[in-house]
């Protein structure tokens, strides 16, 4: 198993964000305050180890991501309607790529269905890996991955 690390999270999430949403990001500081309504997509996985991926984005960035994924203007009503779904799909794609890096492709790893909520990230847990990515306009995404202890 490849060890989970912030650099692995950045490598995987950065590639997915670029290829799916043309979003170029760099690791940055965790925001002290999330000023807007925040979309959180959570996805579980169960392979050689079980775990959970959470992806947080403010609604304005979620709308911009939906617009980029679909080739729409940022203020298109369809981008507003599909903002949550775009974060859910990004969480899904990031998780699929991440578990392949962590566990390889020879073993089965069941992915859950993304669940969307509207809540800002709470305090980071010492038992999870977390990474804040900042896009070129300074907007943050927070990615958190927790692994259950191995048996």
């Amino acid at each position: 198993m490849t060890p989970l690390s912030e650099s692995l999270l950045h490598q995987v999430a950065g590639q997915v964000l670029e290829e799916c949403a043309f979003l170029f990001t760099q690791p940055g500081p965790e925001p002290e305050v999330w000023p807007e309504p925040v979309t959180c997509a959570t996805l579980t996985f169960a392979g050689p180890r079980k775990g959970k991926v959470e992806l947080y984005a403010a609604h304005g960035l979620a709308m911009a991501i939906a617009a980029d994924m679909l080739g729409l203007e940022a203020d298109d009503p369809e981008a507003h309607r599909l903002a949550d779904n775009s974060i859910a799909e990004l969480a899904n794609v990031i998780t699929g790529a991440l578990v392949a890096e962590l566990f390889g492709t020879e073993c089965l790893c069941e992915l859950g269905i993304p669940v969307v909520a509207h809540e800002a990230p709470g305090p980071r847990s010492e038992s999870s890996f977390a990474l804040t990515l900042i896009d070129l306009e300074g907007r943050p995404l927070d990615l958190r991955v927790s692994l259950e202890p191995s048996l």
Partner: protein
Amino acid sequence: MLTVLVVDDSAVMRRMVVKSLSVGGLQINQVFEAAGGQQALDILNAQWIDLVLCDINMPEMNGIELVERMTSDPLTAKVPVVMVTTERSEARISRLKELGVTGYLTKPFRPEMLARTVREVLGLEAVT
């Protein structure tokens, strides 16, 4: 001109797949969308479909179950399928090959990758 069915529980991904087919230079006559396996089977039983593009990880009926149902029905057994999925497990890919699925593309993908996979599965000439 192709009539395609895109099966994915994510509306965003269904739209991305349709857009990618067009960007990739494929001539699409009509697109049907299904958010799950049962809806896909209903469409397949009611419409002529040249190609199914299908996710694996979906609630209620996943993509592998959908393909199993398709291959057990003479009406849909020969419809070509391309899986477009986050799943990379060799066991799943092997199972899909057993079921006759010849196209497999992992997300994230570029439009040209999807178009190339579709052309290979359908035996279409590449656009130069």
